[in-house]
């Protein structure tokens, strides 16, 4: 039951982390205390590591450019990919970093003020690292959906407004 409750709390918080415990308790038909306990436990376990706003960057005043970079690296003895990944994800420009299966090794998501800044990061910081064999940079042109959120203003409800 607690595992199930935690899963449902997690699902709801992933959709909206600002729902208060009282509302969550009503939504899930349990007490406020049970919600608080479930959240505390998940925070303690590191299952929930933080709460952040989902930002529609297209609406930001200042422009932001994002790129996905496919990085091929030569794994190091005894450390595999972890050491080089750490070296990469420590750069503040890097927003996300994943080890991938398939034709390249690391997927790195980078943000910068403009294309030049991202290009500079790739050519001057990323590609010169030992063990980095190649980089393929893809700029994001438009975001439709992020973290399960669709970035449109329209709420489409094609239903009849009143029906029997």
């Amino acid at each position: 039951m607690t595992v199930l409750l935690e899963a449902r709390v997690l699902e709801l918080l992933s959709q909206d982390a600002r729902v208060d415990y009282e509302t969550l308790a009503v939504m899930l038909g349990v007490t406020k205390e049970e919600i608080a306990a479930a959240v505390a436990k998940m925070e303690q376990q590191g299952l929930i590591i933080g709460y952040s706003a989902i930002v529609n960057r297209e609406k930001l005043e200042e422009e932001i450019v994002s790129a996905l970079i496919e990085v091929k690296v030569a794994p190091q003895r005894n450390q595999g990919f972890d050491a080089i990944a750490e070296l990469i994800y420590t750069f503040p420009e890097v927003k996300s970093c994943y080890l991938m299966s398939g034709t390249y090794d690391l997927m790195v998501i980078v943000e910068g003020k403009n294309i030049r800044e991202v290009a500079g990061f790739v050519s001057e910081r990323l590609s010169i690292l030992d063990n980095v064999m190649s980089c393929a940079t893809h700029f994001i042109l438009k975001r439709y959906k992020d973290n399960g959120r669709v970035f449109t203003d329209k709420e489409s409800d094609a239903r009849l407004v009143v029906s029997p």
Partner: protein
Amino acid sequence: MNLKDKIALNVIDVPPSGIRRFFDIVQEMPDAITLGIGEPDFVTPWHIREAAINSIKNGETSYGANNGTKELRTAINHYIKGRFGLQYSAENEMIVTVGASEAIDLALRAVLNPGDEVLIPDPSYVSYVPNVLFAYGVPVPIKTYAQDEFRIHPDNLKKAITPKTKAIILPYPNNPTGAIMGKAHLQELADVLKDTEIIVISDEIYAELTYGQEHISIASIENMRERTILISGFSKAFAMTGWRLGYALAEQTIMDAMKKIHQYVIMCAPRASQAAGVEALVEGAKNGFEDVIKMRNDYDMRRRVILKALNDMGLSCFTPRGAFYVFPCIKSTGLSSEEFAQRLLMEQKVAVVPGTAFGESGEGFVRCCYAVSLKNINEAMRRIKIFLEQF
């Protein structure tokens, strides 16, 4: 020539839908929030839509068997057995219809002679009374009350029965109240009905949407199967309202009569919809109906939110355990249902349906549908609270 004189009297006598007028106003109000809806807010799951697309691609575009494709009837046969413990022959006791709506019409026309009385719990879905009138029957309301959680009280059933009573419509889980009838309560009705020859038309379209308690069909109560016409469909459980796909189950003699009307009037339900129905049931059986469970959990969550909000602001509301409606009492405002709905719409731009649209006993209540986003539920509750401050 006065064309109005040419319209059949039993059609002209049916009053226009009370919902229609509201519809017209709300539609012209782009920033209104509507809780006046009567259908799921999910789109049909993709795999079900895809099955229909494939059926069209495969050229399944001709007429199908009158009573439904064999695949679909077999799938329904398995589904009702697995889900509700009901056994009906896919060959002789089943028909696939254009929505449960057609099945209601068939059932009434199959059994009614002019002047036969049909008992209908009040409040109930808006179509039963007109359907009975179109079939030359006489609708007889059985009032249901908030203190009975809007179930039919066996005493009130007894009182409503006359020598002319031919059938009773049993619509649980109920639209608009959200009431359900559990086994013990159905048994009480069965005890009254067993000494009569009244046919039960059980509209179980919301059977998959009950909360905290499984749906029981009256057909599974001892000795009730023979007299029951069970009606259900895909609209509410699988979010398939626009597909118009339903079915009816009944003992062969009645079913033959229903089939006779259906084959001359309808021919068959749309083929693509039937292919979608097969996918919904066959895939559902494989994965434990995960789509349905997911939607039900979501409705349940919203049910608790809206229920608490309404009760907290003083619109007392019994706890509905089925469908996706709450039916709060608005008598504390001193307004009639119509006035309440009208003023709420004009002053705060929230649409609810006056209880009286569903029958006289709906006076003092309004229907709020919670098959809308949580965001809209919360905003609607905020506006209703402001609206209530003046009373």
